[in-house]
């Protein structure tokens, strides 16, 4: 069976090395995509995790990737947004008020401002557990509830809205935030699966499970 190929969308910042390595560990080929053609030849897309919302939006527009990316996602190519990538899939982020996100999730990204800032530190750094109030999202399949511990490094977070219908999971930092959202073949995670041990790798496998080959 041919190896699946994942295109990591170039946002002109941050590291994709860890992501490439994580995909290699699960026998998937990952590569940096900076042209529309490179996006097209993938089985799945990843919006990577590090950088600034504003620069990432500007980079997507400047590189001409924004439109083709949007179209590909609309056409059903599986897409996973990680950390900043997750924020990009929302409507907007307080990190760059003038910029518009890709809007695949009808959600908003805000700066974490805890009611008790000396107790709940920002950035939110380290290992936090997930909880799902409804049916657990399929992205967490084969990950035992006691093992839903992932590595986070974020100052901005996606706000849960009441009545949000898509499968999702929370993490708690003074208040609940969205850790994971999935809508059809579009997924967003606030944490870094590529640095989150076997559960992180399992999540990446789950993501690719439905990717065509």
């Amino acid at each position: 069976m041919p190896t699946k190929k994942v295109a990591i969308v170039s946002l002109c910042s941050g590291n994709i090395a860890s992501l490439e390595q994580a995909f290699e560990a699960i026998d998937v080929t990952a590569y940096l995509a900076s042209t529309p053609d490179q996006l097209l030849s993938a089985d799945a897309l990843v919006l990577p995790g590090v950088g600034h919302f504003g620069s990432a939006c500007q980079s997507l527009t400047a590189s001409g990737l924004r439109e083709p990316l949007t179209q590909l996602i609309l056409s059903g190519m599986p897409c996973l947004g990680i950390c900043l990538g997750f924020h990009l899939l929302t409507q907007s982020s307080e990190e760059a008020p003038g910029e518009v996100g890709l809007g695949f999730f009808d959600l908003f990204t805000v700066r974490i401002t805890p009611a008790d800032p000396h107790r709940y530190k920002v950035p939110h750094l380290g290992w936090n557990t997930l909880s799902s109030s409804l049916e657990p999202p399929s992205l967490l399949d084969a990950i035992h509830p006691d093992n839903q511990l992932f590595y986070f490094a974020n100052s901005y977070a996606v706000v849960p809205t009441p009545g949000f219908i898509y499968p999702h999971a929370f993490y708690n930092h003074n208040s609940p935030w969205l850790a994971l959202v999935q809508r059809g073949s579009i997924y967003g995670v606030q944490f870094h699966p590529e640095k989150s041990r076997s559960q992180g790798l399992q999540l990446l496998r789950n993501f690719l499970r439905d990717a065509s080959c």
Partner: protein
Amino acid sequence: MLRPRLIASLLVDQQLHLVKTNRFHERHYLGDPLNAAYVFSGFEVDELLILAIDATAHGHCVPLSFVESIARFTSVPLCVGGGLANLNHIHELLALGVEKVALSSALCSGLNFLEHASQQFGSSTITVVLNLCSNAAGEPLACFGRPSPSNPGQPLFTLARDCQLAGAGELVLYDSTRDGSRLGFDIPLFAALNDQLTIPLVALGGCGSHAHIQDLLRATSISGVAAGSLFAYAPWSQQVLFNYPLTSHWFTSLLASQRELYT
């Protein structure tokens, strides 16, 4: 609930030997840092803190090829520092697969570099290492880089607050007075500092036992506990035996039993 991190600290010298220090002076040779990193990655440490402690003194940044090897053969969150002095250093390290960079000596001449780094890369990628150089009653003094007569300390709390204002994402307070001693942490100091800060604080220097970790966590909800000696040596000895899993399992049980303290 965000858990406190149990962090393994590795120090490398100018020859890229892995070393353990005592009060920032004596050095004990521990072998190959790449293999140590590989081992701790296999131990699934919460985070690995790697500092090139001679880099500034020799006028360069921690070697990129070394960091590249570490990043390539580990899969745990990495914080790497040593001689980072400009934005390009930071950019290159982050591109190699490092989650956070640690700044220290470069801040001796002011915090502009910290501000720019935080703005450019995001505060969650910027850790500042402050070295506690003296702790005479009521007057804790800290400095960036190695304490020395030409690098005297300034009041710790002021310095910490200034770093926070300048955009540091995290502060590691390295207690040079207890480094390698395995005498435990200065708990009132860390508690007071942690209460003052709104950014995460990591304690490093002096950890010798599980009791030390437990006492610190009882006193304050610190974001991370880092240790060198505890994880490099067999319990209560000076004989090298990299370890982590036992402490990690104990730590997980401790957090589970303390969960009622965190609502």
